[in-house]
């Protein structure tokens, strides 16, 4: 029995799978990313060691999360960065609004931030008369077209240049239609340069927050992040509370893993490390720097030793790139902020299984993601766990809506399966039945879905058990 969320997902994926242009765009892009990652991590042994290190650094940070957050707050505050705490996305939005209002600001420039997507910040501010201008090129493109990002790193990857040319031509004033990538970039640069110049407040995410020194690390290629965090007099940084790392020396390996995994680069154009607002004798930089630390379900995820591995994520997007499901349905079909394999384990834990549990079924457990995750999150293992949580009414109840999927039909089916596979007599009877059926298997239940794309399986007349019994193989 499918609930509304499940029906929505089915409809969205169905639509996406039929969209030939979308599938072409994603196939091209993901293939590219896979190749780039292979090239940058060519030395398998070294890559393995680096991933182990990344995993260890993140696990260490999570095991000391409250202490590190306290230290981060202490160091930031001492350096002049104002730290705010938000339990919910609404609280975080309110905090941004408060800062904007304190400066009578109506123009915000934004660097790319998935947390701000989680917050639904743009819509929140716009409904209150504040312009939140995306400055990352990909985000800029989709903002013009009123769309959400379809990928964590390259938000407009679902669009090809013809589609982008059309968007620029239609939505930007006095802009001729051009498919030339250099020209498109020049148009964006010109438009956004003006926005940087006029901006009153700049907002960014945080890639790594270092507790030891109270430093916020931001990486980027375009320069819009540096612009947004240096030109306006006020800088607001938003981060999920799991982004804190213990020491400054934890940054280089994580940086290498992030840039290599996200875009196949040795290093991004810029690595921007902010430790304080403008000092008295300095001439530029923001006079005020704010750090908003968001919970939104993360502290709860920390409770479960297995599921807390979800929080190791450094948001590189490589799991998306390697996922055969994501490549075919694209980011929007998932219907939540975070698409791809990480989305399949994160969204259900944050939004609850009723709303997002359907995502856990959208995986063949092929392990392509686990093979490349820079911090070795065992995503397929966590998917199995969340599937179990969906059916189990006697779990620890740490995941919202656990047991929501429990139903008589499946319970009986698996109990039946268990019975047959632990009772040799029943098993033998079952085999005689299927042998007799052969290819005439009734097309109901799961078989109906199978036969939409494949011919029905043909049961052998004589099973292996029977053939072996006839042959006379030793039995002990």
């Amino acid at each position, binding site marked *: 029995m499918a609930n509304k969320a499940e029906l929505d997902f089915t409809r969205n994926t169905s639509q996406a799978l039929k969209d030939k242009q979308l599938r072409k765009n994603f196939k091209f892009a993901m293939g590219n990313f896979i190749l780039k990652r292979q090239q940058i991590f060519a030395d398998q042994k070294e890559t393995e060691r680096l991933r182990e290190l990344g995993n260890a650094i993140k696990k260490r940070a999570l095991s000391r999360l409250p202490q590190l957050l306290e230290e981060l707050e202490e160091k930031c505050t001492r350096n002049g960065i104002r730290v705010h*705490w938000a339990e919910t996305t609404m609280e975080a939005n309110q905090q941004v609004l408060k800062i904007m209002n304190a400066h009578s600001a109506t123009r915000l420039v934004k660097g790319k931030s998935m947390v701000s997507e989680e917050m639904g910040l743009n819509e929140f501010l716009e409904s209150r008369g504040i312009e939140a201008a995306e400055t990352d090129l990909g985000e800029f493109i989709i903002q013009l077209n009123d769309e959400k990002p379809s990928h964590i790193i390259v938000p407009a990857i679902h669009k090809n240049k013809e589609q982008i040319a059309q968007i620029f031509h239609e939505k930007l004033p006095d802009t001729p239609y051009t498919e030339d990538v250099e020209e498109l970039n020049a148009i964006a640069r010109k438009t956004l340069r003006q926005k940087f110049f006029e901006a009153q407040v700049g907002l960014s995410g945080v890639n790594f927050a270092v507790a030891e020194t109270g430093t916020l690390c931001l990486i980027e290629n375009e*320069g819009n992040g540096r612009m947004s965090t240096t030109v306006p007099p006020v800088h607001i940084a938003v981060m999920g509370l799991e982004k804190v790392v213990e020491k400054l020396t934890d940054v280089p390996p994580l940086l290498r893993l992030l840039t290599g995994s996200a875009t196949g680069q040795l290093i991004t154009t*810029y690595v921007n*490390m902010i430790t304080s607002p403008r000092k008295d004798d300095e*001439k530029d930089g923001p006079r005020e720097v704010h750090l908003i630390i968001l919970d939104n379900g993360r502290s709860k995820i920390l409770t479960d030793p297995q599921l807390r591995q979800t929080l190791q994520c450094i948001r590189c997007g490589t799991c998306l790139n390697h996922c055969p499901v994501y490549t075919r349905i694209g980011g929007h079909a998932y219907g939540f902020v975070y698409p791809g394999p990480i989305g399949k384990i994160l969204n259900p834990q944050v939004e609850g299984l009723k709303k997002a549990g359907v995502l856990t079924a959208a995986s063949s457990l092929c392990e392509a993601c686990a093979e490349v995750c820079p911090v070795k999150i065992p995503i397929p293992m966590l998917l199995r766990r969340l599937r179990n949580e969906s059916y189990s009414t006697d779990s620890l109840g740490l995941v919202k809506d656990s047991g929501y999927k429990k139903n008589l039909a499946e319970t009986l089916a698996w109990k039946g399966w268990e019975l047959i596979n632990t009772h040799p007599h029943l098993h033998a009877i079952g085999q005689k039945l299927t042998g007799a059926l052969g290819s005439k298997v009734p097309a109901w239940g799961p078989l109906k879905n199978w036969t939409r794309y494949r011919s029905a399986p043909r049961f052998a007349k004589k099973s292996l058990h029977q053939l072996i019994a006839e042959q006379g193989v030793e039995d002990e």
Partner: protein
Amino acid sequence: MSKHARAKIFSRLKSALANGIPDNQAVDYLPIETSSQNEKVSKLKGYMEAVRTEVHVVDAENWKDPLKAILKPRALKTLLYAPETQIGNALAQDWPGADGNEGLPDLVTYEGNIEAFKEDLFQIDAAITSTVGGIAETGAIILWPDAKEPRLMSLVPPIHIAVLEADKIFNSFDEVMQAQKWPQKMPTNAILISGPSKTADIELTLAFGVHGPKELIVLILS
């Protein structure tokens, strides 16, 4: 509101870890490779050129001539510099400027703070800054902007010229952090720069000069 949220968040975090066994792992950092200065210069040059940085290895005793040769064909009007730095000081000595008829730009300084200087800053053609070091294994220069050399010098003008001493090139990011004792004294802003700004957001086609400088020119003083 924030204090209340803080209390609740910390209460949840602490009880979350009280229930399970914390994963506390001994971390084995990767060893720092060592190589000669020539090797480091060569590596840094190679990686930075691969992302379209223009790299010149010049004589430490005479870098102004190569600089002039780089500037002349670009026919620039203004070059922003920091007079209180060592290179700024050296640069200003007998700089002909536009009047000199050598096709060189006028030297301009960061007048006042950004609030006063913003409009002019956005019109400047190029800026020249010092660096505090470089990283060979990834190909990057390191800037620690300060009162003498403000942050936006290396970001706003479309051309950024950076002067890097060869003996300040380290093998890795780890190495420079430890050698220069970063954890003890992080500046307002520390930046690693590997090349001119770029994006591949449109069909993964690489395009340079988005919001940061379109050109990055590095002079390695050897």
